[in-house]
């Protein structure tokens, strides 16, 4: 048996490096990212300044950072329940969309309401919408053993088409010059902002509360223990008497509800109405956020801020460096790539002979 490259499981892989590897991944991303700027004939240092520093050099920028980080953190916190349980819910984008449709639908239904109960009702329905959309792959998985990665992903596109249907059809704003968008939500259905003139909204509090609850659940409760066990070994989880199917169901519902909540916050917060492109792939990017944060609630909050910065940086880069904003996605991709790489090298030893 002669191989050029062999990998060997490390007997003793380090916990310290497990938590260090996100930082290593970020450093590697910056290093290799600088080559992208060099190839484009731009000074890497200047470019990084524009990309990572200038977007948050004023209060408006910092507020925007939280506006982007809030949905990412909320979705990623929800996803961490699934991922801890080794369930790969890739369809948060669709659950986010469904949350926006359900919650936003309530806002449009009562569009002359001034009641203080309108917003809580919208939030509730946002969560229900996301949870509802997530139960479909959960049921398919538990009843027919279908692969949840495929079903949840495909349902994302279904959800996007449903939103499309509503904004060009029944919910189209009659005074909207034929544009595919709904009427604005009534003032009572808008998410309060934290500071006048800035867009950062009370969704931040929700993210922190969800983070706190998740921390408690993971570390102190029976439910968190069940997730941990079944994530590590499904046989041991059966031995312990845990019902794996129930866990699949609960984790899907939790992550769907979080994604739905984030969707509702987007439409009732910064956007204020329903239209086609309510999310710049928050649902997909949150997968990176969850893993970069090591499925740890506090880690997720930190990584959501970092990834949010790539969104802002990409916008500034487009504006000042005249390069496509897709460079933001390139950075997100690089971070994920290097994170998987460092994780692999932490777990395995590579022998070259």
């Amino acid at each position, binding site marked *: *048996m*002669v191989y050029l490259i062999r990998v060997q499981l*490390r*007997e*003793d892989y380090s916990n310290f490096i497990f938590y260090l590897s996100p930082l290593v991944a970020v450093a590697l991303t910056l290093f290799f990212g600088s080559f992208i700027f060099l190839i484009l004939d731009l000074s890497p240092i200047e470019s990084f300044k524009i990309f990572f520093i200038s977007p948050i050099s004023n209060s408006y920028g910092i507020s925007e950072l939280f506006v982007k980080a809030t949905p990412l953190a909320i979705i990623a916190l929800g996803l961490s329940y699934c991922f801890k349980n080794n369930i790969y819910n890739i369809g948060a984008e669709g659950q986010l969309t469904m949350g926006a449709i359900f919650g936003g639908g309530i806002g449009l239904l009562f569009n002359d309401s001034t009641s203080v109960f309108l917003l809580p009702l919208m939030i509730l329905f946002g969560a229900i919408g996301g949870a509802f959309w997530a139960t479909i792959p959960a049921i398919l998985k538990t009843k027919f053993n279908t692969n949840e990665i495929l079903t949840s992903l495909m349902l994302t596109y279904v959800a996007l088409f449903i939103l499309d249907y509503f904004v060009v059809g029944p919910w189209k704003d009659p005074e909207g010059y034929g544009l595919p968008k709904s009427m604005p939500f009534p003032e009572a259905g808008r998410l309060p902002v934290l500071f006048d003139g800035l867009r950062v909204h009370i969704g931040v509090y929700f993210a922190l509360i969800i983070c706190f609850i998740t921390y408690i659940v993971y570390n*102190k*409760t*029976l*439910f968190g*223990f069940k997730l*941990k*066990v079944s994530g*590590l*070994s499904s*046989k*041991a989880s*059966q*031995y*312990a*008497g845990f*019902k794996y199917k129930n866990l699949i169901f609960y984790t899907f519902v939790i992550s769907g509800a979080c994604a739905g909540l984030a969707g509702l916050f987007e439409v009732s917060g910064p956007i204020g109405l329903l239209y086609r492109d309510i999310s710049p792939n928050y649902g997909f990017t949150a997968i990176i956020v969850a893993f970069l944060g090591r499925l740890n609630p506090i880690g997720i909050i930190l990584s959501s801020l970092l990834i949010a910065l790539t969104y802002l940086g990409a916008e500034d880069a487009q504006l000042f460096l005249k390069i496509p904003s897709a460079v933001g996605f390139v950075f997100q991709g690089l971070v994920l790539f290097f994170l998987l790489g460092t994780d692999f090298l932490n777990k395995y030893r590579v022998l070259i002979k």
Partner: protein
Amino acid sequence: MQSIVEFRNIYKSYPGVIANDNVSFKINEQSIHAILGENGAGKSTLVKILYGHVKPDSGEILINSDLAIINSPSTAKNLGINMVFQHFSLFESLTVAENLILGMNENISLSKLKNNSKTICDKYGFNLNLNSPISSLSVGQRQSVEIVRSLLNNPKILIMDEPTSVLTPDEISKLFKIIKKLVKDGLTVIFISHKLEEIINLSDYVTIMRNGKVVSTISTKNEDPETLGYKMLGYKVSKAKQVSDINFSQEIFNIKNLSTQSKDPFTINLNKIDLNLKKGQIFGIAGVAGNGQKELMEILLNENDYEFSGDIIFKDLNINNLSTFQRKSLSISYVTEERLGHSAVPEMSLSENIFLSMNHKSEFKKGDFINFEKINSYASDVINNFNVDTPSYNVKAGKLSGGNLQKFIIGREIMSNPELLILSQPTWGIDAGSEAFIKKTIVELSQKGVSIIIISHDLDELLEVCHEISVLYEGSLSNPLKVDNINITKLGKYMGGLFD
């Protein structure tokens, strides 16, 4: 006599362990040479080095006094070295002949191969139908296929890694006859085992290994199991003799007419199993692996809602439809065959592994929250009472040796005061010290009135601790035999399926 193989200072280390530490000895031509040692003594590593499967860090091998560089199994085969592994590598859905031809290095026609195989089978008494699919064969027959496959290469040296661990007593004596005949015809057999009597019966020489080192290489002529055992372990192990002249009266657990009708060809269907267990009794279920043990354990645990007919009754209560959780709550405890990843999670601490099995106990919970204080103190008690060698309960379960972890797991279950304890392969693959401790603990537990079922392939273990033994064969369970003055011939026949 001339030596055919010579090991010179073979050294091989793995992270954290030295598997072979300067191993040197010679193997005589046309002899049966046993390598004896406990699990982890380095026997398997050594023969894998000889077979080119593992590369040593240093040291040399001489074949017929010439230095041989063996860096792959195919070089080994060219040198006339073949190996029959403990775990077979056969394609279930192919026929015997098809499997045989897949093992050939040279090109050969199927008809010629069949002729050659038939000659070998007839000469040595292998009872094989070359056209039957592997899936229809018993474990013993599968092993025959593996041996014939090796013999087709005309080997000079045949390595057999624990060949008897999967066989019935009857099959073992047949295998030994075959091996002796092969050696007469010029073969050299290297035989790995940890069973002392076998080695004395079969082999001419034995190399005893302990912790990667050779203790000695001796002729088996003047040895008996006791002296050999002492050399293997370096200390004496006392047997846990069960006192079995007790009249058991109170019935505690019954299986009535248990059958399964699964259509999955890779599972064994259970056939009208009856079992009757009394308070304080230890009941052994013997039999070769793959005769329905896995399926029976699955039904007893009820992890997957395995479908069956018949009744399982615990203290007058029908528990057919009760979940694992509910059964545990009724004070039935389980220790499964697999330790890591089933009855324990290697990545979790010992404390967490306590809660893994004890999460039905309200004392470890405060509502939906976990009471880690109580769990930690329970874990310390298990560690102290059951001689678990570990610095603390925060150590990950995967860091413990097999024997230590098994003591921890069995201790965990015993400390919860079960009324019925069901163990599968309780001492499989662990060191002799832990094995002796566990056997002693099981016997003492029964004397306190706990009923115990042990499912095991290891007949010696069952004979040592049980009051009664039944044999599981192709899904049927024999009538129980009392272990007091047991008729070993009868038991052997049972293991071959000869009971009504």
